C-alpha cells in the first residue's frame, strides 16, 4: 500500500502574462504515495508560504475529475500518464521513487497564461455562447416523454455531453484546435430530437467562432482523444466535417 517516495517537481513559474517564465525545481522528500499530485502541490505551497515565497498557482476545485478546472502537462502529457484521468485523480503511486515530474501549463494561443500553471480558458465558453444550446425558454417545454429518444441514442448523446471543458484536447493538439470540444457539443445536441431545429446553424456558428477565438484546424494526429479524461472519441471530428457541409 502506502510507501514514501522522493520526487523532484520541475515547475513552470511565471509571475504574469507578460513576465518572463522559467522552470524551477523543487525536491520533496518522503511523500506518501497515497497523495494525489495536486495534494503534493498543496504540500509544496505550504512549504513555500512558510518560507516567504509565492506559492505555485494551479487551477483546481472538485478534485474528483468532474468540474474540469484542473489541467496541466505532466512530463509533456496533458493530465499526466494515466488514461481517462484528469490530473486531480493522478496519485503518486503512479510514479517511481526519485522521479522527476515536469509540470507546464496548457500552451495555446486561445488560452492566455495567467500565472504559473493557470491559463484562461474563457474562449471555450465563448464557443458555446455562439450556439451550443437549445433555444428554449422556461415555460415552453413540452412533456418530457412526448418526444421519444431511443436508449442507445440517449447513451451516445450522453457520451459526447460528458466533456468537462478542461481544454486538454486543445493543449495537446499541435494546431491548438478545439475541434474535439466543438464536435462533442455539436454531437451531443445533434443526436437528440431537441437539438434538431438549430442543428445546421449551430454547426456553422461554433466552427466560425473557433476561428475567431484563434484555435487552429484539426491536426489529425488524434492526441486529443488520447488525453481526453472523458474518453470522447475523435471520430466525432470527422462526423463534424460532414455535418457542416
Amino acid at each position, binding site marked *: 500500500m502506502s510507501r514514501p517516495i522522493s520526487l523532484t517537481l520541475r515547475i513552470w513559474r511565471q509571475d504574469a502574462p507578460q513576465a518572463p517564465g522559467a522552470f524551477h525545481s523543487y525536491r520533496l522528500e518522503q511523500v506518501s504515495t497515497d497523495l494525489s499530485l495536486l495534494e503534493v502541490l498543496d504540500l509544496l505551497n505550504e512549504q513555500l508560504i512558510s518560507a516567504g515565497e509565492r506559492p505555485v498557482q494551479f487551477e483546481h476545485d472538485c478534485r474528483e475529475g468532474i468540474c474540469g478546472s484542473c489541467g496541466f502537462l505532466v512530463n509533456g502529457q496533458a493530465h499526466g500518464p494515466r488514461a481517462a484521468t484528469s490530473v486531480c485523480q493522478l496519485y503518486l503511486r503512479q510514479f517511481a521513487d526519485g522521479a522527476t515530474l515536469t509540470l507546464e501549463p496548457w500552451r495555446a494561443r486561445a488560452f492566455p497564461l495567467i500565472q504559473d500553471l493557470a491559463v484562461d480558458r474563457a474562449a471555450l465558453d465563448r464557443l458555446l455562447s455562439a450556439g451550443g444550446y437549445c433555444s428554449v425558454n422556461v415555460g415552453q*417545454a413540452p412533456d418530457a416523454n412526448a418526444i421519444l429518444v431511443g436508449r442507445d441514442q440517449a447513451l451516445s448523446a450522453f457520451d459526447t455531453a460528458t466533456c468537462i471543458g478542461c481544454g486538454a484536447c486543445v493543449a495537446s493538439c499541435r494546431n491548438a484546435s478545439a475541434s474535439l470540444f466543438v464536435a462533442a457539443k455539436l454531437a451531443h445536441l445533434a443526436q437528440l430530437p431537441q437539438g434538431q431545429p438549430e442543428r445546421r446553424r449551430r454547426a456553422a456558428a461554433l466552427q466560425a467562432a473557433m476561428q475567431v477565438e484563434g484555435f487552429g484546424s484539426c491536426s489529425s494526429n488524434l492526441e486529443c482523444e488520447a488525453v481526453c479524461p472523458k474518453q470522447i472519441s475523435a471520430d466525432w471530428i470527422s462526423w463534424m466535417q460532414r455535418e457542416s457541409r
Partner: protein
Amino acid sequence: MAGLPDARLPAGPIAGAWRRTREELPLVSPLRKRQLRVLVVGTGLAGASAAATLAEQGYRVTVLSYHDSPRRAHSVAAQGGINAARDNAGDGDSISRLFADTLRGGDFRAREAGCMRLAELSSAIIDQAVAQGVPFAREYGGMLATRSFGGALVSRTFYARGQTGQQLLYGATQALLRQVAAGRITLLCRRDLVELITVDGVARGAVARNLLTGELEVHTAQAVLLATGGYSNVYFLSTNALKSNASAIWRAHRQGALFANPCFTQIHPTCIPSGDPGQSKLTLMSESLRNDGRLWVPAAAGDRRDPAQIPEAERDYFLERLYPRYANMAPRDLASRRARERCNAGHGVGPGGRSVYLDLRDAIAEQGLEPIAQRYGNLLEMYERITGDDPTTTPLRIYPAPHYTMGGLWVDYQLMSSIPGLFVLGEANFSEHGANRLGASALMQGLADGMFIAPATVTAWLAGYPTPEIAADHPACREARARAQARIDALLAVQGARPVDAFHRELGALMIERCGISRDGEGLRAGLAELAALEQRFQVEVRVPGPASGPNPELEKGLRLADFFGLAQLMLRDALAREESCGAHFREEHQSADGEARRDDARFAHIAAWEHRGDGTEPLRHAEPLAFTALQPSARSYR
C-alpha cells in the same frame, strides 16, 4: 431588526397553494423589465437557471461566479439523480407521496407548504431539462428511465449515468450562455463576493473581488440573488469542491440576514476515508453500493488482521444486526452514526482505525463478478485509482464524510431573506429538506428555486419597489467596499508563520469531532472554547502572502476561512440550543435505550433563525413554529 419577519406562508390547503399564490403575485411590464437589473451570485443549478430564466423574461442580469466558467459550479459533481413525482414507473408515485417522503425524511423540521410546492414543481423540471437537451437515461422504447433511491418506496429518480448533476448543470449553463449571447446577461467570472451592499436595510448590490486583478468591484442591482451553495467545507475534509465557501451567505448574515438551522448538516456514510494528513478532500462513493455491499467491522476491538484472515464468525455486520429490516440500506444518518460508533469502540479498520469495510465478496460469489463490475464499474475504478486497492478482491474501506448542509439563510415562502430584496436559492437557503435531505432531492430543489419560484417572486418584489439602481459611488457602496478592504488589509498585515490550510485543517478536525455525526452538550461547549482559541491563534499566526493585487489564491482562502470561523461558532451554538435529536442532528443526551434518536416536538417543532447582533454580542435565536396539517409528525423507525 425586530424579530422574525412574516414567512408569508400561503393560506388554505397546502395542495395547490403555490399556484394560487403565483396567480396573485404582481407582474412587471416587458418594457420596464428591460430597465431593471438583477444580480445573481453563483452559477450552480439554482443560480444559472434563475439567471437564464430572468433574462429570458427580459430583465438585465449580472452574474458573478468564482469559477473561470459557470459550468464548474459544484452542482456538477452530483452523481445519483433528480427526483420527480411523475409516476413514471407506474408504481403509484404521486405529488402527495413525494411531499410526504420529503417531510418525513426531513424528520418534520421543514415547512409543509414548501415541501408540497417542491413536489408540485418537480415534474416540470424534468420537462424543461429534457427540452434543454439533457440526455437522461431512457428505456428501449424511448421513454424516460428511473431508478430507486434511499428513503423512498417508489422509483422516481431520473438520471444520466452517474453524472446527473453535470448534465443538468450543462443544460442550465448553456441556457445562461444563450442569454449572454443575447446581451441580456453580463457574465463576470472569477469574482468572489466579499460584501453585501444594503441601503436602509434593503439589498442593493454587492462588492466582489476580481480574482485576477484583486480589484474590489461594486455591482449594483434592484434585487440580489444568492445561489452560492452550502458550507460543508467548514469541516475541511468533505465531499465538496475545495473552493466551495460560505462567504456570500455569511456576509449577508452579518448585514442582517437571519441564518436558519445552521447545525443541520448531512454526513454521507459511504466515502473514501482519509488516510494521509495531506489529504485534501473526501470522495463520495454512491450509496447505491450498499445494495450489494455488506458493511462490517472485526467483532473484536483492535483486530488488525488482514480482512481475508478474519473468519465469518469474527465479523460484525453491524447494520444487519441493528436494523434487520433495512440492514445495509438503513438511511444515511443511521449508517453514518453506527459506523462512527463502531470506530470509536475500537473496531475501526485502516489507518487510525477510522473506517469500516464495505464488502462485495458475497454479492460476487452469488451473482458473479461480471454483473457487479457492470453495475458499479466506474465507482470501483475510481476507488482503485484513489486507494490503489482492488475492491473486487479486498473489501472497500469507507467512512462518513460531510456532504450537504440543510441549514442556510432563512427565507420566507417567496425565497426572500430577512433583508428585503435579498433572495436565497438552492443549498444556500435553509431549504425544504428539514433536518435531513433525501438522496436526489438537492438537484430538484435547486432547479425548482431557480427555474420557477425565484423568477416569479423576484418579479413580485421588483413590481412593488420602483427604486432606481444606486450609483456605484453611493455612500453605501463606498462603505461596503471599505469594509472589505479593511478585512483584506488586516489579513495581509498579520504576517505570521502558518499557512491558511494548517488552520483550516484544525478547524475541520474540531468541527467533525464536536459537531459532526454525533453531538453532546459538553462537547459542544468545549468546542466553542476550542474554536475561540483557534480563531485567536489564526488572527496572530496566519501567514497570507501578498500582494492584494493580482491573483492570490491564499488571500481567497484566508478570507473564506475567516468567514468559516464565524459560521462554525453559529453551528456549535445552534447544535447546543437544539436539545433534541432529529434527522442528521443527533444529540447523545436525547436517545432511546436502544440508541435511536428522540425528537422533541413539544419544544423543538420549529425553525431556529439566528440574528447577528454585532461582534462581541451573542447572536439571538428566533423560533419560527412549524405547523403540520397535511401529515402529522410520526417517529422514524427503521428497525
